[in-house]
Each structure stands twice: as C-alpha cells, then as structure tokens.
C-alpha cells in the first residue's frame, strides 16, 4: 500500500471553503525511459484521482506521464454537512488506493 498524506481541517463552519492537500507516494514511471540495459521501462503511472464528499464527486483529475513522482494535488471544496471525504487514486497495474477522513461541520 502506498503512503499517502492528507492535510485538511477536521472541523469547518457551514458554507466555509476548505483547502484539501494530498500527497501520495508513486514512482510515476513515464514509459519513455530506458534502463541501464537499454530496455524500455514499462509505464506505471496514476491515471485518475477522485475526491468524494459523502459519495458525491467534488473534485477529480486525470494524471499523465509528464507528472512528477509522488504527485501533490491540492484543491478547495465547500463544507456543506458533516460527513466522510474519501480520496481514491487509480493507476496502471491495477493500482487502487482509497483513504478517507471525516469532516465535522458546525
């Protein structure tokens, strides 16, 4: 399982705009590089990032080969109600990881 760091507030006022920052460890191997023997290294990148707020998609991104290893994705959303915010990364070789955090809205 890849390591992921998620930084977001645990509480927020209703209708407040909150910032969410995510960092995940991933090599993001482009598929264009050659190893020391000259053989092409197979592509291994994250393809999609999705953030769901109580099941509803509030942010998503497509990732491509030119994105650096250990991608950092930061975005904003509006705190509507207390609930679970989940983060999923999907990629090559069946990579799939989901993390979730709870947000308390007052």
């Amino acid at each position, binding site marked *: 399982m890849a*390591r992921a760091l998620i930084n977001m507030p645990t509480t927020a006022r209703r209708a407040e705009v909150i910032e969410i920052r995510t960092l995940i460890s991933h090599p993001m191997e482009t598929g264009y590089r050659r190893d020391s023997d000259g053989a092409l290294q197979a592509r291994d990148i994250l393809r999609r990032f999705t953030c769901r707020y109580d099941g509803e998609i509030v942010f998503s991104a497509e990732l491509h080969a030119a994105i*650096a290893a250990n991608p950092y994705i930061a975005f904003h959303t509006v705190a509507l109600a207390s609930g679970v915010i989940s983060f999923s990364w999907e990629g090559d070789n069946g990579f799939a990881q989901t993390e979730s955090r709870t947000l308390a809205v007052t």
Partner: protein
Amino acid sequence: MKRGAVAVALLLAACAAPPDTRRSGLAFMTPATQALQRDDTQNPGMLWVQDGAALWSRAAGTSGRSCADCHGDAPRSMRGVATRYPRLDASLGRPVDLGERIAQCRVRQGATPPPAESQERLSLQAYVAHQSRGLPIAPDDDPRLVPFRERGRQLFERRIGQLNLACAQCHDQLAGARLGGSTIPQGHPSGYPIYRLEWQSLGSLQRRMRNCMSGVRAEPHAYGAIELIELELHLMQRARGMPLETPAVRP
C-alpha cells in the same frame, strides 16, 4: 586604561569571530523549491518520515522487538541524535553514519539489515533525523575521530576524476557561481536524507557524494566505504552549528 582593555578585548572577539558566510543549500534554491521544503504538507520527504514513524513501532526480526521497545518515544529519545553522526563504533574501530547504525540495530533485532538506499533504511533515517530538525549540527568531539576527519578533509581537497576536480574547488571556491543551469551550493550536509527533484526520491548523503564523483568522472566509492564516511565527518564538521532541515528538498 580599563576602557582600553575592554576595547582590545572587543577587537579580539571581533577578529576571532568573522561573520558566518556559510549558507545551507536552501538559500541557493528558487523560491518555489524553498516553499516545497518549508511546507510539510507539500514536502514529499514527509512521506518517508511518515513511513519511518510506522516502522519505528513495528516489531522486526526474530527478536520480535521494535525500535520503540528499546528507544521509546522517538521525538524524545532521538532528539539531537542525527546532529552528532557519524560517530565512532568501538567494536568496529571506525566511524559509522546514521544509516549504518540503523542497519546494525536491525541486526540486533534479528532482522536482515536494510541495504543502503533501501526504502526501509531511508525511512527510518529520515524519521530519526527529522527529530533533530532545527537543532544545530554538533559533531562528536571524540579524539579517536580526529584522524578519520582529517582524512576526510584531505579527500575533500584532493583532485579526482578525468575532470581533475576536488570537492573544494566547486564548493569552497566557486559556491554561488553557476554550473550549467544550476547554482553551485556550498555543500553543507544540513538536510539529509534529502528529497532531490532530480532523483524523484529520497536519498542519502552518500548517494549525493557518489553523484558528484561520477560528475567529475571519477570512480565513486562503494556505499558504506570508509572514504565516504570520512567525507561525511569532514562535511559535518564544516557545517558545525548550522541547523538541520531533514527532510530537505533539493533541485
């Protein structure tokens, strides 16, 4: 008369302590890379620190003991430890750096020692060194280290490789100047292990020095070689008093 003596004493003090012109590699980076290091929520090195924290309390090897079982709470027990390495290992009769010490501990735990630059070793090293962030580098004053440190200084000043360059020529004499597109830093080991953007990964001081050696087209010393430890000793002495930044980000 007395006032004169005070003036002389002040003058002497001023002569004895010239302004410190040493600068961490942080000062030579672009504002964007500096921001990446300073914000823990962006700094990719924190992924290894987080991993190290998990490894710290996980039982390893046949002993079934974790680092925490002997060393306790790392923020307290490991505070300042990384500022003193490399230190002398009495049983080996030579200095070892922090990574090698961690590998030795793994052997005591009855586990296979993590090889140089392995994820396990770098993570634990980053986690331990992170506990000293902000503390001044304070090399061990053990007199038995003196000959090793002196050899490190000589290695730093010796020309090597097809380009016939010594470390000191760039990092002492040309620091701040440009090498191709990059600024030459003063070469202070104040943030290791570092997340280097060129590597897209965390790496040790030994890896960085080996990079420089192949850069001047010399045969790099093997990981763990005494020459690299001696260079580490000299570099830490040279950076004495500078604050540790682990995990630093470098271009």
